[in-house]
């Protein structure tokens, strides 16, 4: 432990010296008497001060938590020698806070004492947090010496993003070959009725529509849409983050990605992830609960790393973007490199949906006329960009303060319904 003198030592030594010098100069023993308590405390206190021997360990009840939820833990403290005042400060990384407001406790320990102090932590935002280190500060009974040291071993706490409320998700234009919950546009064995056609040898008897056959005096069979799964790729923009206070576009994008991943995986779709930014992260599409945790843990590592390099879609391995996949882009639409990647993907024929995490509410309009003019120009440029993307056949949904994710996705569904008609 590092040892240092408290401000008392300098203060008491100064007062002692002043008192004694004044006593000598003025030849008054009373002034020497004034300095006696300070000198006495210094002499006795510094003689008695011995290095404390303390062990501290922080354990958490769980290494996973949902953003905003509390995680219980405890601090185990043991002291081989007595400590008059032991202050324990849990070192909390930014984004993690003490749920009850106190991340520091003080206690008195006798030699051989063992104590357990409960702590409750709350991750204010999703992410990976290293918890377990504590700053320990010990003081002697005279408060003359302070010992300080950082103890404990960090363990990782994964804070999963909380999910947005989404009941209906986007259906892809094309489905894949495996059985799933999405009604395919093609015809085959399924439940959903599609059409009638004339009977051909080889058709199953159960497919014959007897009522229609009786009306036409010829055998007619039902055609149905099969239920298939889909490939969905969540395409997160990590080039830029617009942040104001507790709100951030990247935080919202990650929450939306986690929500959509969970919903699609519930439908037995294959879900993959691409986080395009300073660091390119991807996860190959997959199904099931394991894929859900993989996705969320990959998304937790997403952050904005500044880069000036031009990164495009060519850097993404082809197996990450399977053909006929629905690509859901989550972006504040502020970085031209990401917009270029969207245009590139669309040009390659991907079924692309852009969920714009609206940064407008996070930007101040400006104080003077020039700043307000720039703000208005920026809004106009965003409108132009949105129109350009829609012109390329992308559905662009704005998700912001006044529009929920559910409503934004509903807007995309409406757009895609008309877009399909236009294409026909």
């Amino acid at each position: 432990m590092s040892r240092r003198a408290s401000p008392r030592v300098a203060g008491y030594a100064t007062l002692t010296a002043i008192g004694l010098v004044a006593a000598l100069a003025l030849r008054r023993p009373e002034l020497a008497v004034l300095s006696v308590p300070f000198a006495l405390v210094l002499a006795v206190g510094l003689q008695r001060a011995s290095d404390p021997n303390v062990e501290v360990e922080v354990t958490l009840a769980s290494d996973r938590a949902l953003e905003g939820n509390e995680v219980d833990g405890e601090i185990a403290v043991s002291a081989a020698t007595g400590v008059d005042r032991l202050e324990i400060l849990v070192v909390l990384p930014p984004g993690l806070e003490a749920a009850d407001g106190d991340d520091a406790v003080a206690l008195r320990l006798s030699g051989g004492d063992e104590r357990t102090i409960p702590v409750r932590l709350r991750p204010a935002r999703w992410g990976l947090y290293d918890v377990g280190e504590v700053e320990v500060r010990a003081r002697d009974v005279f408060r003359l010496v302070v010992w300080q040291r950082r103890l404990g071993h960090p363990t990782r706490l994964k804070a999963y993003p909380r999910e947005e409320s989404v009941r209906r998700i986007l259906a892809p234009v094309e489905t894949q070959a495996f059985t799933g919950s999405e009604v395919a546009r093609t015809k085959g064995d399924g439940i959903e009725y599609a059409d009638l056609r004339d009977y051909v040898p080889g058709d199953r008897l159960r497919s014959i529509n007897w009522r229609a056959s009786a009306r036409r005096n010829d055998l007619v069979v039902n055609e149905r849409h099969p239920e298939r799964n889909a490939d969905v790729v969540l395409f997160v923009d990590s080039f830029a983050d617009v942040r104001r206070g507790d709100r951030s576009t990247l935080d919202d994008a990650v929450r939306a990605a986690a929500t959509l991943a969970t919903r699609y995986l519930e439908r037995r779709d294959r879900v993959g992830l691409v986080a395009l930014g300073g660091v390119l992260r991807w996860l190959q599409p997959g199904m099931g609960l394991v894929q859900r945790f993989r996705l969320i843990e990959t998304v937790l590592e997403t952050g904005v790393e500044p880069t000036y390099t031009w990164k495009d879609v060519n850097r993404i391995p082809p197996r990450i973007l399977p053909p006929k996949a629905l690509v859901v882009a989550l972006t504040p639409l502020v970085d031209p490199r990401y917009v270029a990647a969207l245009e590139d993907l669309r040009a390659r024929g991907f079924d692309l949906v852009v969920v714009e995490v609206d940064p407008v509410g996070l930007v101040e309009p400006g104080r003077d006329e020039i700043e307000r003019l720039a703000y208005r120009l920026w809004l106009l440029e965003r409108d132009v960009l949105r129109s350009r993307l829609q012109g390329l056949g992308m559905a662009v949904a704005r998700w912001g303060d006044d529009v929920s994710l559910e409503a934004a996705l509903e807007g995309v569904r409406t757009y895609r319904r008309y877009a399909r008609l236009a294409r026909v």
Partner: protein
Amino acid sequence: MVWAGLRVVLVALLVLVAALVLEWAPLLPASLALLGGVYAAQLYADDARLDGAAPLVAAGLYVTAELGYWSLEERERVEAAPGEGLRRLAIVTLLGLVALVVAATLLALADIVRTRGLAVDILGAAAAAAALLAVVLLTRRPES
């Protein structure tokens, strides 16, 4: 003289308040030194034989210093165990009483040896040497 003393006391109290408000510990001994200076000036002006109130002044200054530093330490938001404040107060009170007793004993001793001429000088020199020794001991403690 009285008004000048009162003014200095007022300044000392202001310095004390500033030390606590600004959380600047070096101001604390400065305010106590000013108070002690007023007492010294009064002793010098009165030229009394030996002031019996010196132990009370010494204990008062010491308790003021302890409470001031305690107040500065409490600015850090640390949740202490229940009863810890009372225990600390008891310790400060006890130290104040010990200071009072020791100061009174030393004053009585000084009164006895005062008649022997240079005794007070020797006592002062010995006390100064002890204070210096304490400071040297502190600075020589190796950091672990």
